[in-house]
């Protein structure tokens, strides 16, 4: 009984909306007062997709700056995470807490102050500025993930590699980095989602010249084109799921080859 209730709750909350979106995308003419689409044919979808260029541009731009943001947060947090995991100094907890604040503080509070300076520095209205500000919003998740993993792994593997004559660089690349891959994947997934879902920061710092998929959806929502809205929402679901699945398959294959699992 309670089992059925759990599954029913999950289905109503999370499966039904997706089903509704699929139906709405396939039947753009579906609206009040029909409880189910009167005319279900894929021609409606073809109609919606007649001019795919703006949508694809927005999607490609969002994918591009989101992946760049993931790389930027790795570059920002790799050395600090390894340091924070093993060092002990006064005020360490305070520093760690402070470094996580960008994830908690409303993004508006710092980005609007920056806006004016970014314009002066030529960082507004271009991808560099967008990636910079998105990296600030996203890096705490990467830092948290990597620091936890570094604590968990410990320093012994590295010490072993160094004792066996590996250079510090080689010990990092061939010993530490493979062990950190799951944490990189986890942190990277969250950072990607943060960047890919963000509307306001891209709109403010990108100033309309950096297209975003969220920005593409915004006017569609308030328009009467429900079919297009549903399609874009489904893509919002499909792209991260496809990325995460690919990542999992790639990581699984890598670990099997190296015999680490």
């Amino acid at each position: 009984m309670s089992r059925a209730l759990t599954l029913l709750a999950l289905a109503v909350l999370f499966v039904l909306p997706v089903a509704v979106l699929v139906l709405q995308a396939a039947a753009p003419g579906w609206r009040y007062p029909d409880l189910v689409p009167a005319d279900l044919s894929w021609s409606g979808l073809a109609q919606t997709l007649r001019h795919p260029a703006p949508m694809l541009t927005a999607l490609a731009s969002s994918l591009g700056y989101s992946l760049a943001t993931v790389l930027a947060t790795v570059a920002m947090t790799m050395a600090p995470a390894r340091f924070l995991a093993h060092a002990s100094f006064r005020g360490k907890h305070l520093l760690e807490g402070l470094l996580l604040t960008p994830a908690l503080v409303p993004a508006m509070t710092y980005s609007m102050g920056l806006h004016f300076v970014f314009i002066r520095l030529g960082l507004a209205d271009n991808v560099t500025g967008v990636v910079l500000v998105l990296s600030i919003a996203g890096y705490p998740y990467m830092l948290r993930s990597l620091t936890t993993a570094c604590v968990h792994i410990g320093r012994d593997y590295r010490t072993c590699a160094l004792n066996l004559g590996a250079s510090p660089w080689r010990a990092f690349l061939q010993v530490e980095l493979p062990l950190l891959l799951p944490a990189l994947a986890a942190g990277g997934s969250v950072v990607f989602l943060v960047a890919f879902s963000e509307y306001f920061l891209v709109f403010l710092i990108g100033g309309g010249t950096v297209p975003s998929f969220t920005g593409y959806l915004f006017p569609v929502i308030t328009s009467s084109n429900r079919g297009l809205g549903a399609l874009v929402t489904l893509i919002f679901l499909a792209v991260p799921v496809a990325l995460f699945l690919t990542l999992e398959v790639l990581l699984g294959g890598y670990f099997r080859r190296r015999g680490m699992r």
Partner: protein
Amino acid sequence: MARPLLPLLLPFAGIFAAGLCLTLCQSLGLFLPLGSTGPTPEHYATVLGSAAMQRSFLFTLYVSLVSALGSVTLGTGLGYMVWKLPARLRQTAVVYKVGLILPHVAVAFLVLLYFGQTGLLASLLHRLGLAPTPQDFPQVLYAGDGLGMILAYMFKGTPFAMLMTLAVLFGFDTRLLQTAAMLGAGRFHAFRRVTLPRLLPAMHSAFIILFLYAFGAFDIPFLLGESRPGMLAMRVYDIYFRKDLTERPQAMAILALMFAFTALFTMLYNALARRVDDRGRKL
């Protein structure tokens, strides 16, 4: 010693902290696009003295508190129920990640699709004969009580709270529950005294994160918010983009006050949560 920290400390100071400082400076009338006029506290006086602004603050507080509380309650309950499922059924629960992946913009679209005056629920009530016309459908969105925004935040927040509680539950030693049962505890009693105290830290974190997000976010209020009283983020947006440049310091003053409030709220909440949890643990 701090050299490994530099790749992080530089952007933290140069972008994040600098951005906060600039917001603060501009709220005091300094470094404005039209030149400095300060420092002056007058913009704070204007903002704090405005009755409309006070209503916006209370409204924002209400929407974020209700949505965060609702998400944590529902998410913890669902997480607990999923954990109780047999292992083979647990796999199906991954569907909850739909709510984690969809951005707020897309969730706003779903809320409109479901709860709009000509939405799915209206169609359902029409079919059942309970609301023959769209006008008969009880207004859920833009009714002035923030319900549309609360629904959207809860759709995003519930899976997040599930994620946090499930992470604890999957690492939970079930022998504790068996011991409690052997000592005569009923299911409810065991939940309250054994499971719940272990879930509380995760629930507190989820609450704080969801509350702070809803308090300061822009997307949902822009798409689902009513214009009066209006969420604080919308006030800031209106002043910054739609009004005269001379009023811009007011937008910055609201942001600075929002920042101060979030910091204060987090500290007070953590202190309070620690005290309440400690009292529970003495038993």
